[in-house]
Every structure is written in structure tokens, then in C-alpha cells.
């Protein structure tokens, strides 16, 4: 296969037709360049949007209560629905389609947090340990609320980074006691979620809050994760099924959105990802289309080349060139042009997207770019590899018909003196 002579022959013909070879190669390079840029941009957009979903588990669902607006089972509308600790037990143990559960109990009014002379007003999230996974909370120090904290109603608290800065300045907050209202809580962890307002929030055990702030067995809302599915239809069915289960427990119409409100993010997530799938398909179609145009160009040029070289091919055949060696000559030239040109396009395209990515990261690092819906617009290695394989195959395809024509050249016709 590797034969110095055949490459020398090919290179000498390419050298003879520099401009033509360049133009041909350019169309292929342009095709693959556009494919890479489009794919990279598609990826960038998708990554940017995915980032928006990254603050929570994608299968998160919120449920809250209100007053009924529809009569149900002989009961009049206007009834107030309330979640209780029994609902928590139901959701964690028996409910279908539910994975992790955290209850939430709202503290009334503004709560002042203080440490020594420093104080400030911050919001409090009362929760179960599952919230760590459900809301994808990131800890920089210590630990999150655990089951023992819930069971023993411990007065422990996990604070957001903004709270740490406000109350502790440079001091290490771990193990220190801060006052929430007038009750001292021990700091057990620090959270930091860039790009969210959670840094001005503290997390305390749900049970502790319920007891300390006179909540009885009242639960204001539930944050849960549902069974993971891949279609919008299934996600909507889960939402419906959860509502039905809660409606049965509390005697309200499952369609009554003011009795119980719910939001299932999975539906939106899947819908968005479906759009990106469609975009990616579209990009591939356009990219492949551009590439085909390039390949047809190569094929065209090779046809002309074979036509021009008919006499030369005839001479070769009269000297003993077999049809196979003639085919190899044309095919390899075609593959060489497409592969080299395509590779250059590939490198340029990937290079450009990497440069854009570098620029974006610089902007992010500089604190800007929060609103940019564009992250990591690069093409992964396997895609680039696929593109390379497509190139080589298409080079061979482009050369096939011309090569066959060349093999069919009849020496007597080619050598006839005009």
C-alpha cells in the first residue's frame, strides 16, 4: 500500500495543477470547516442552556397547597388544603414515581442572623437531607444536614457564602454559634452556588424549625425528584400521577390547580433537549450537504483530470500498467486531496471554536458573561474522528467513477495520433 513511487506520481500531478487542486481542496475544507463551526455552536448553545438547568436535578418537582377552586366529592370549593408530616411519610415510603423528598416549612417574617456584633437579614430553607441532591447544593466546607440532625432536632445550620462573609469576615465559621432570631445554631457547613441567589440562604433541619417556630405538623411545600424518563409524555404522566395520589389523600379534584400547585421541571428539560436534538440533526444535514457539494467538486475535477490524462494512461497501459494500478493512482489522488484539505478544514474549524471557548472562559473568569447562553462551544474528539472517517470514505467515493473511467481507457484510442 505504501509505495513511494505512487505518491511521487500523485504529488507531481498535483504540482502541475496547483490552482485547480487548491480550489478543489478548498471546497472540501470549507465544508468540513462549516460542519465543525455549526456543530460547535450547537453544542455551545446546548451547553449554555443545560447550564441553566444545572442548578437543580433535572427531574425536580415542586408541590405547594392553596384553597380548592372546584367542588369535589360533595365538598364545597374554597376549602384550604394543607400538607402535613404524614404526607412526607407517604411520599418517602409509599408514593409512586417519587424518588427523593424534602419538606419545607417557611419561617414567618424576616429573620435576623447575628454573630457577635455582625448581623443581617437572610432567608432560611428548612429541609431534609435529600435537598442536597435535589437542588444540587455545593458545599465548600463541612457537611450538609443529615438524618441524625432531623431525628434529634439538632440546632445546626448550613450557611451560604454571602452569610459567611457578612457575619464572619475572615474568621473560620465552622463550629461557631450564630443566632437565628434569638436561638443559637451551630454552623456545620458552607455552601457556594455561583450564579444563584442561594448564597444568601441558610439550611436548617426541617424538624428543628417546625418545633422551634411552632409549626405543629404543618408542611408548606415539598421538593422532590421524580422517576427519570426520556419523553415529554411520560414526564407529564408522572406529574399527573403524583397529583392524583395527593388528591386522593386530601379529597380534591386532581385537576384543581389552586388546591395544589405543582411544577415538574423534567417536562421542560426534555422538551428543550428535544429541540437541541432537532438542531443537531439540522446541523448535520446542512454540514453533510456542504460536504457533499465539496465532494462532488472533487469528483468533477478528477473526471476532468482523467480526461486530460487519457493519453498518459494509455501510454502507461501500453507499457504494462494493469487496470488496478491505474485505479489506485486516481483513487489515491482523490483520497489525498480530500483528506488533506478536509483535515485542514477540521483543524481550522475546531481551532476557531476552541479560540471562542477560550475567549468566553476569560470573560466568565472576569466576572462577566452571566447572561451568555453559550458555553464550551467545542466539538468532541469522537465527532472529529467521525468527520475524518467520512472524509476518507467520501474521498474514495469521489474518486471511484473517475478511477473506473481511467481503468476503462483503451490504449489504442488514447494513443491514436490526431
Amino acid at each position, binding site marked *: 500500500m505504501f509505495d*513511494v*513511487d505512487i505518491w511521487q506520481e500523485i504529488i*507531481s*500531478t498535483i504540482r*502541475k495543477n496547483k490552482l485547480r487542486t487548491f480550489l478543489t481542496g478548498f471546497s472540501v475544507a470549507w465544508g468540513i470547516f462549516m460542519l465543525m463551526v455549526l456543530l460547535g455552536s450547537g453544542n455551545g448553545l446546548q451547553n449554555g442552556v443545560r447550564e441553566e438547568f444545572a442548578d437543580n436535578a433535572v427531574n425536580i418537582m415542586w408541590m405547594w397547597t392553596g384553597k380548592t377552586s372546584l367542588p369535589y366529592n360533595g365538598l364545597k370549593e374554597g376549602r384550604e388544603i394543607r400538607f402535613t408530616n404524614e404526607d412526607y411519610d407517604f411520599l418517602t415510603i409509599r408514593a409512586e414515581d417519587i424518588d427523593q423528598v424534602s419538606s419545607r416549612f417557611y419561617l414567618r417574617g424576616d429573620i435576623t442572623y447575628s454573630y457577635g456584633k455582625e448581623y443581617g437579614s437572610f432567608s432560611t430553607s428548612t429541609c431534609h437531607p435529600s435537598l442536597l441532591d435535589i437542588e444540587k447544593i455545593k458545599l465548600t466546607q463541612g457537611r450538609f444536614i443529615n438524618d441524625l440532625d432531623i431525628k434529634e432536632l439538632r440546632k445546626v445550620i448550613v450557611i451560604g457564602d454571602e452569610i459567611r462573609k457578612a457575619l464572619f469576615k475572615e474568621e473560620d465559621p465552622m463550629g461557631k454559634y450564630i443566632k437565628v432570631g434569638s436561638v443559637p445554631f451551630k454552623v456545620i457547613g458552607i455552601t457556594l452556588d455561583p450564579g444563584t441567589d442561594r448564597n444568601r440562604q441558610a439550611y436548617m433541619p426541617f424538624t428543628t424549625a417546625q418545633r422551634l417556630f411552632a409549626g405543629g405538623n404543618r408542611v408548606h411545600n415539598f421538593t422532590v425528584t421524580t422517576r427519570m424518563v426520556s419523553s415529554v409524555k411520560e414526564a407529564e404522566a408522572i406529574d399527573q400521577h403524583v397529583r392524583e395520589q395527593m388528591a386522593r389523600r386530601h379529597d380534591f379534584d386532581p385537576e384543581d390547580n389552586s388546591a395544589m400547585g405543582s411544577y415538574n421541571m423534567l417536562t421542560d428539560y426534555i422538551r428543550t433537549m428535544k429541540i437541541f436534538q432537532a438542531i443537531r440533526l439540522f446541523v448535520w444535514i446542512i454540514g453533510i450537504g456542504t460536504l457533499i457539494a465539496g465532494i462532488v467538486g472533487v469528483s468533477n475535477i478528477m473526471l476532468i483530470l482523467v480526461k486530460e490524462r487519457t*493519453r*498518459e494512461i*494509455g*501510454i*502507461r*497501459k*501500453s*507499457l*504494462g*500498467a*494493469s*487496470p*488496478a*494500478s491505474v485505479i489506485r493512482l486516481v483513487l489515491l489522488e482523490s483520497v489525498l486531496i480530500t483528506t488533506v484539505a478536509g483535515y485542514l478544514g477540521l483543524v481550522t474549524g475546531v481551532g476557531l471554536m476552541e479560540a471562542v471557548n477560550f475567549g468566553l472562559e476569560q470573560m466568565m473568569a472576569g466576572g462577566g458573561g452571566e447572561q451568555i447562553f453559550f458555553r464550551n462551544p467545542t466539538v468532541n474528539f469522537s465527532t472529529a474522528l467521525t468527520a475524518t472517517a467520512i472524509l476518507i470514505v467520501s474521498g474514495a467515493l469521489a474518486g471511484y467513477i473517475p478511477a473506473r473511467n481511467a*481503468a476503462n481507457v*483503451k*490504449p*489504442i484510442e488514447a*494513443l491514436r*495520433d490526431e
Partner: protein
Amino acid sequence: MIVLNNLHKSYVTGNNSLHVLKGIDLEIHAGEFVSVMGSSGSGKSTLLNILGILDDYDEGDYFLDGKKIKGLNETRAAITRNQMIGFVFQSFNLISFKNALENVALPLYYQKVSRRKRNVIAMEYLDRFGLKDWADHLPAELSGGQKQRVAIARAMISKPQVILADEPTGALDTATSFEVMQILKEVNDQGITVIIVTHEHDIAAMTSKIIRMKDGIIGETIINGDLKMYREIIRSENTFSYV
């Protein structure tokens, strides 16, 4: 070396069939120096193409070195051409972007001889034809006579048994034509069968056997005593003489 029995060849174009060779019987022995003459359309080029396995025939037999040549596939034909036959053409048919050395070495490339080895051999052949100093020149930089010498060197390099020359002097002036014929004579002296197609009487007169073709058959074969007479006639017709 070459035996033809009742060879027929027709070209079919659409509904018309052109019967070009109408039963050729011919025997050419190893080491003969033969010329084929005839007006255009007499079928001499077709005959040469068939002898060179560039074209197939319809009827009859063609034996080359005792082997019957009929219906070979392209690859087989290419191998036989490469090993048995050397071609020399009127318009030289050198490959324009290859220098003299590379042109001469090309048949050996198709015999899969290594690059270094075939360049050494090609240089020997160029030297033999007095073209050593022109080895790295492209065909465009050579004179007609030099080009034809390169072409003959190329035809010789694969040590063929037969050299087929189609109007080898057709594009050359008189002096160069004789020079080229001298070379072909030397080639023939080495025992290689040389067959040339020509329409020039003085060129044909330099060969040892003249085959005249007429309307697809062999009209007459001039040898021995007849040939001497033929040469006399040609000599008297021309102002120049040759040795």
C-alpha cells in the same frame, strides 16, 4: 515468433460493420526486421494493435512465442505486453512531466522493480543510446531524435522479444529518421524481432522484409532478391544514399 492464421477483424459502429482485416496469414521469425506498408485504411495499424495486444481480433489465430493470444483480460494483457513487447510510436508518447530517466524506467515500475535498481538500469540504457547527459531533462527539452531514442530505450528496458514501431520516423526529418532506423537496426542485431509500420519506401527499404497490405489482406511480401531490387529502385529515386 509470430504466427497469424486467417486473422479477421471488423469494427462495428452502429449498424455499419467495417471489415478491416480480411484473413491475414503471416509468419515472422525471431530476429526478423520487418516493415508493414500500405496506404491508409489498408489495416496496417489495426494489425499492429492486434500484434501488440492492444486490440482483440474476431476470427483466426494469433500465436506469440508459441502462446495463443485471444481474449486476454486487461490485467493479463498488460502483463504480456510488459514482458514480451516494446512499443515505439510516431509521436513518441513520453510522459511529459517525467524526465528521460523516469520515462525509461517506467516499464520496470510495472514489473515492481525497486526504485533504485530500475534507475540504475534506466541509466545504462540511456547511456547505450547516448543520452546519459540528458537523463534529468523533461521530454519538452529534448529534440525529436532524442525523444525517439528515449522511447526506444523505454521499449528496450523490459527486454522484450518484439519491438512494435508505429511510424517511428513519421515526425522526424530525414537525417534523424535514418539515425533512428540505425538504432532500430542495432536493436534488431541483438536478436530482437522488430516490426515497423511505415508508408515511407526508403524506410521500408532498410528492413529485411516488407509486407505490403492492401484492403485488409497481405498484397505482397518482398524478401531476398526482390528486396535487393526494391532497394535499387528506391536508391535511384532518392538523391541521397545510405550505407
